[in-house]
C-alpha cells in the first residue's frame, strides 16, 4: 500500500468510458507525472484525485483512507491549475489567504504563512496587486503560493507551465523541481510535454486513450518502452520506428532492413535476442542517438554495426546535426556530432548501436524484445 493509491479507478461520462481501469500506487515524496496527448484522460484522473470529479468505479485512497465521498477541501490536497485560476476580485494576498480563511485559520497565523510563502516564491512585492496586473510567470508563482500554504499531503498540478513562453517554462520547471527537493511533498503532475515529464518525475505514467500505457521511472520508460505508442511519444526527436524482417547473419538472428535503392542490410540483434523468430515481420525501434557517425558511436557497446546509406537531409541543431536517411521505407533520423562533415546526397557509413534497439510486433504494437 502506497501513500496515494489509485485502485481499479474508472471514469465514464454517460456511455463513454474516458478512463479505463487504472492502478497506480504512489509512494510518499514521489513526483509522479501523468503524460500523454490531449484528451487521453490525464486531467480527468487528476480531478478524480482532487475530488472534483466522481470516481465511476474503483477507489482512490490517500494515506490508506478511501477518498470516495470526501469533499475536495477535506482531502488535504492542493492544486495548481493550467489557467492559474486566481480570483480576479482579490489581491494576491487575498488569493493566498482565501483557502486558509476557509479552513478557519486566525488572521495573524495567515499573515505569517503568507509572508513565508511570498518570501519562498519571491512575490513579496506583489502581495497587494490584483491578478490582472501580473505577468504570466508571476501569476504562476501566486498560484503555487496559494497551494503551498496548505501543507498538503499531495500537490496536484494540471499543466501548470503550458501557458508560459518557452524560456520561462524551462525556468519554472527548474523551480518546481527545486521546490520538490526542498519540501519533499508528494506530487502528481499532469503535462502533455514529454520533456517536462522526463526532467521532473521520479516516475511517469504514460497515458493514451484512457489507458495507462506504461508506468515506470523516466529511464525505464525511455529505454524500455512497453509499446510503440510509448516509444514514439517519449523522446525528441522521437524514436525511429521502421519495418524489418528477422533473418540469419553468420548463424545469429539479425534484422533485415531495406534501404532506399532496394539493397538490404543486416543488423545482428545484441545478445542473441529474437532467436527462433526467423522470417517474422517486426517493427524495429532505434533512438536517434543510437544512429550516429563512426566516431560518435558508443565505445562501450560491442553491438555497433555499420550500414552504408545515402543521406537525404541534414538538420544542423547547434550542438548536434540530425541526419536523415531512408530505411524500411521510412525516414530515419540519426544524431551526429555537429562537426561531422556530411551533406545531402552523400553515401555515408551510419553506426547503429543494436544494444539500444527495441522490437515491436507490427500487429499488436506491443514490445517483443
Amino acid at each position, binding site marked *: 500500500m502506497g501513500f496515494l493509491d489509485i485502485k481499479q479507478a474508472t471514469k465514464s461520462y454517460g456511455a463513454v468510458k474516458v478512463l479505463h481501469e487504472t492502478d497506480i500506487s504512489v509512494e510518499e515524496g514521489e513526483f509522479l507525472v501523468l503524460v500523454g496527448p490531449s484528451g487521453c484522460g490525464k486531467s480527468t484522473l487528476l480531478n478524480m484525485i482532487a475530488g*472534483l470529479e466522481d470516481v465511476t468505479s474503483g477507489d482512490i485512497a490517500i494515506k490508506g483512507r478511501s477518498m470516495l465521498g470526501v469533499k*475536495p*477541501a477535506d482531502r488535504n490536497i492542493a492544486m495548481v491549475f493550467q489557467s*492559474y*485560476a486566481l480570483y480576479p476580485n482579490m489581491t494576491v494576498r487575498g488569493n493566498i489567504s482565501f483557502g486558509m480563511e476557509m479552513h478557519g485559520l486566525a488572521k495573524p497565523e495567515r499573515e505569517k504563512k503568507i509572508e513565508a510563502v511570498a518570501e519562498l516564491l519571491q512575490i513579496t512585492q506583489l502581495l497587494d496587486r490584483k491578478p490582472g*496586473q*501580473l505577468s504570466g510567470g508571476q501569476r504562476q508563482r501566486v498560484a503555487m503560493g496559494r497551494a503551498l500554504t496548505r501543507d498538503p499531503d499531495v500537490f496536484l498540478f494540471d499543466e501548470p507551465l503550458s501557458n508560459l513562453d518557452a524560456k520561462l517554462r524551462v525556468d519554472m520547471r527548474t523551480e518546481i523541481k527545486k521546490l520538490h527537493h526542498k519540501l519533499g511533498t508528494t506530487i502528481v503532475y499532469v503535462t502533455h510535454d514529454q520533456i517536462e515529464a522526463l526532467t521532473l518525475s521520479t516516475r511517469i505514467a504514460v497515458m493514451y486513450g484512457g489507458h495507462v500505457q506504461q508506468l515506470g521511472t523516466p529511464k525505464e520508460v525511455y529505454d524500455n518502452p512497453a509499446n510503440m505508442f510509448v516509444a514514439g511519444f517519449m523522446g525528441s526527436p522521437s524514436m525511429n520506428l521502421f519495418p524489418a524482417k528477422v533473418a540469419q547473419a553468420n548463424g545469429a538472428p539479425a534484422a533485415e532492413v531495406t534501404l532506399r535503392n532496394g539493397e538490404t542490410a543486416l543488423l545482428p540483434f545484441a545478445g542473441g535476442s529474437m532467436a527462433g523468430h526467423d522470417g517474422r515481420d517486426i517493427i524495429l525501434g532505434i533512438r536517434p542517438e543510437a544512429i550516429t557517425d563512426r566516431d560518435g558511436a558508443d565505445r562501450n557497446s560491442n553491438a555497433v554495426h555499420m550500414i552504408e546509406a545515402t543521406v537525404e537531409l541534414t538538420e544542423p541543431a547547434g550542438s548536434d546535426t540530425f541526419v536523415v536517411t531512408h530505411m524500411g521505407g521510412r525516414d530515419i533520423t540519426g544524431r551526429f556530432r555537429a562537426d561531422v562533415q556530411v551533406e545531402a546526397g552523400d553515401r555515408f557509413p551510419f553506426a547503429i548501436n543494436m544494444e539500444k534497439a527495441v522490437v515491436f510486433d507490427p500487429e499488436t504494437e506491443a514490445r517483443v524484445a
Partner: protein
Amino acid sequence: MATAPTSRFITAGTGDPTQPRAKGPRLSAHLPRVILYALLTLFCIYYLLPLYVMVANSLKPLSEITAGGMMALPDAWTLAPWQSAWSTAQIGVEATGLRPYFINSLVMVIPAVAISTILGALNGYVLTKWHFRGATLIFGLLLFGCFIPFQMVLIPMARMLGLMGLSGTVPGLIFVHLVYGIGFSTLYFRNYYAAFPTELVRAAQIDGAGFFRIFWRILLPSSGPIAVVCIIWQFTNIWNDFLFGASFADFDSQPMTVALNNLVNSSTGVKEYNVHFAGALMAAAPTLLVYIVAGRFFVRGLMAGSVKG
C-alpha cells in the same frame, strides 16, 4: 467613435494642420462628418421634442396651454401643477394626488427587482457550475416562461393570487413580477456565468469554500456588469407595467402607471393638461434615474486578466 482615430491619422498624414496648404483637403475630408453630426442633431431634437413639451407645459398655468401655446416656454413659471399632481389631484374617487401610488410602486419595484436579480444570479450559477440532471430542461422551461404573453396568464394568475390570499395587494404584485422576472434574470446570468472560468470555482472548492461562499465571494464580485443590465431591465419593465397593475391591484395598492391613467381619465370638467404632464414626468423619473445612476457603474472588463495571459 471608432472611425475618429482613423480620420485623425489621415489628417496627420497629409501634413502639419497649421500649414495653410493642408487646409483644402482637410475641409473636404471632414464634410461627411459634418453631415453626419447635422443628421444626428436633427434626430436628437426629434426625440427630445416630446420631453421638452412635457417639461415646458408642466411648468405653466393651464390658461397658457388652452390659449394654444403648446410649444412656447411658460410666460408665468409655476410649480403648482407639480404640487397638484403629487398631493391634491383627483385620482379615481379620491383627491390624494399621485404620492400614495408612487410609494406603492416603489414598495413593489424594489423587492421585485432585488429578489428576481438575486434568484436569477443563483439560478445562473447553479445552471452553469453545478451540473445536474435536467439542467437543460429547466433552463429551457424558464426561457419558455419569458415568452408567454402576459394576457395568457391573467386569469390563472388571478386564481393563484386568490388562493394565496394575495389578491389586490402589493405583495401579490411583487409575486407576479417575480415570477415573470426570474426567467429573464436567469437568462442574463446564465449566459454571463457560462463564460466565467469553471476552474475558479474548482479552485475555491479545493480552498474549502462551499456552495454559497463560492457564489458570494467569487462569482458575485465579478458580476457587476450583468447585474446592472439585469437591474435596469427589470426595473424598467416592472415600474412601467400597466397590465398586471390594472388587473391585480385594488384602489389602495395601485402602482403609479395605473394611477396616472386614473388621473388623466378622472378629471371632471376641464382637462388639466399641465397637471397631467407633471404626473407623467413623475411616473417616468425613476426609470430615467436608474439609467443615469446605474449606467455609470456599467464598467466592463472586470474579468480581464483573471485567467491566462
